[in-house]
């Protein structure tokens, strides 16, 4: 079989960014809170590899700290989405009928809201901030996970092994937990990767319009926003966070595709 290059590259890039995010929890080359107006807007040089911004902060350090926000928000949003969506999907598939209708029409209602609009609504009520961005993105992940797990579960329920489990006296809950969920694992991991990359973009988008992480919490989206007026003067300020986001999302998508190929179960 041909080597799964998608998976290899995807794992490398994703692990790299997550590693950087973890590292930023403890150490960045320069303190991102300290201003150095004298050294502002330096182009990339030996001391500041990616240059400095309008307040003299090190761009590399800001990107590392931004990765921390990005990974944190997207990851928790995926956990919220999967944590609520997967059980809902499994319940809908196991009980069918009215419960199924209720769950799926509830999903449709969430889907019917434009994502950004609801995020604005949530931040308008709760105030802007990283936590509220997590909630907004997480809510939008719920119906995605519910649908994917319901579709996979419906298929798994048609197999005779679920019948055998019922003959062995097991109820719908137990069969869902023991037989259905493990067989959805591949599907869910792939979906989680995709939602993770969408979460990274959504976090940056919310921060860009000022609804995400607030200063001084660093964020790629806000870096882009702040760099906007300075693009002619200091292009690296916009290019560097943009590149970081592009690479990370690309890596996650490669990972998702690679995982999808490698989890096609041989029966």
């Amino acid at each position: 079989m041909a080597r799964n290059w998608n998976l290899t590259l995807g794992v490398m890039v994703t692990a790299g960014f997550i590693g950087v995010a973890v590292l930023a929890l403890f150490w960045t080359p320069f303190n991102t809170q300290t201003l150095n107006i004298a050294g502002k807007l330096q182009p990339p040089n030996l001391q500041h590899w990616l240059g400095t911004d309008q307040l003299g902060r090190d761009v590399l350090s800001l990107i590392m700290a931004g990765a921390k926000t990005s990974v944190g928000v997207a990851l928790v949003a995926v956990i919220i989405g999967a944590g609520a969506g997967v059980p809902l999907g499994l319940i809908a598939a196991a009980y069918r009928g009215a419960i199924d209708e209720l769950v799926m029409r509830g999903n449709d209602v969430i889907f019917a809201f434009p994502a950004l609009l609801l995020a604005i609504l949530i931040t308008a009520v709760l105030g802007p901030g990283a936590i509220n961005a997590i909630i907004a993105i997480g809510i939008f992940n719920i119906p995605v996970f519910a649908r994917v797990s319901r579709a996979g579960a419906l298929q798994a329920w048609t197999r005779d092994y679920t019948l055998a489990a019922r003959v062995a006296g097991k109820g719908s809950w137990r069969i869902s937990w023991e037989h259905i969920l493990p067989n959805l694992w591949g599907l869910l991991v792939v979906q989680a990767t995709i939602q993770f990359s969408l979460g990274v973009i959504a976090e940056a988008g919310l921060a860009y319009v000022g609804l995400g992480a607030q200063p001084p919490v660093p964020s790629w989206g806000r870096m882009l926003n702040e760099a906007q007026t300075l693009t002619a003067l200091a292009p690296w300020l916009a290019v560097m966070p943009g590149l970081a986001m592009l690479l990370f999302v690309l890596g996650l998508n490669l990972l998702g595709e690679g995982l999808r190929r490698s989890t096609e179960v041989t029966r």
Partner: protein
Amino acid sequence: MTERASTHALRVEELSVTIGATPIIKQVSFSVGAGEILGLVGASGSGKSMTARAIMQLLPSGAVMSGVVALHGERLSGRSEAHLQTVRGRDVGMIFQEPMSALNPLMCIGDQVAETVRLHRSVSRAEARDAARAALDQAGLSGEAGAHQRLPYELSGGQRQRVAIAMAIVMQPRLLIADEPTTALDVITQAQVLALLRDLARSRGMGLLLVTHDMAVIAQLTDRVAVMRQGEIIEHGTTAEILHHGREAYTRSLLAAARLPRKRAKPAPPDAAVVLKVDGVVQEYPRKRRSLFKAPPPLRAVDGVSLSIRAGETVGLVGESGSGKSSLLKVILALQNPAQGSVSLLGDAFSTAAGAAGKRARRNLQAVFQDPVGSFDPRWPVERLIAEPFFLLDAPPTGAARSRQVAEVLEQVGLKADDARRYPHEFSGGQRQRIAIARALITRPAVIAFDEAVSALDVLVREQILELLAQLAADLKVAYLFVTHDLHVIRAIADRIYVMQSGRIVEEGATEAIFSAPRHAYTRALIEATPALPA
């Protein structure tokens, strides 16, 4: 039939196919004359289907072919794909086992047949439609108005196979290849489709290559037979020669498997206690709503069925698909509650109710299903799969005790104790069915229900599994409820038979009594339609 000297419809010479370094077909040669029916018979994995695909030059990627395939004198081997596309469907028609997947679900059957015509001949839509209509008529799908406007899902399995046949014959090919054309069909439908194929071959002087594993079908239909084993034709001759004077042991074992001698030594004593009793069970399903105001009357799948099984007895439940036997089985296994009536197991009522009493009852009724692939969670090892019914015990064995009991049943069904650590995909279909039997045995039930448990198996494997079941029934005194459409199987194993038609039991009696003197017209039709080998 007087065109050229060598007008075989099909001539195959020294055909070999290899995939990688593995030879799949080795030096196979045969021919089919105009109007002649040649049977290609063998167990699964013998290379017979691959031979049919090689003739159509439709090999899987990676397969390398050598040798000559000639269609009425014209060589097909080595021709371009574009040329082959004009040949397929025009000069050779092909029919597969599963007709549903061969049809476009969104296109009415008349159009599907007409499409084949328009692909191969530049004709107007109207002419193509007329040709399609004629082909469908010949395939026996005429009758009521609008018959050609129907969609595949509206048709029964047999009717779908007739559409596939119409598509294959509409261009009047000189050769028709049929790969297990009736394996997915009921006996009565099978008899009709086989008769249709024979008439078509005879009346049009069309060569027919029939690929099958069933010697009884071979005996009914073919003029000559080629027996395949491990990619080689090991024996070749007229059907009468092969049936009566087959030289090879393999041929004789295929014949024996098709005859399926009786496996069950002696029936259970008639005075044994009743273990399973079904009393007046009615099961209904809501029908699709057509009117806004009036709910349609429900479909009665099971209509007042009563039956009983005694300790250690093997009981057969026979019927065509749609006769309600699967719905009845769901009620018996307490997977659904009946609309009316009741089921009792060892004297206690048995229903879908959960709880301790329900669990205790379930322990005494286990089941084996048809699909040897789908019956097992692919992510569980065999030991965990077999031990799943231990869930029904109040104090299930754990650790070494569990392993010991699993090893014991594995050995009882003819597998090895260390197979417990392997995963289901590592086993063949017959071995998986043995694992399913082991899973049914582990709680030491009083009754095991078998839902078409041997119909997905190869003939030779089927015989071994039935032998095992008869042995287990005698040793363990367990009762069986055998649900199937296959009369051969029932005759080989059942002590007593219930015949089911349209949701009702129409006849009941001891196996040999029913086979020798069927009273009900439906039973007679079933027995007559079952292909039989000359004694």
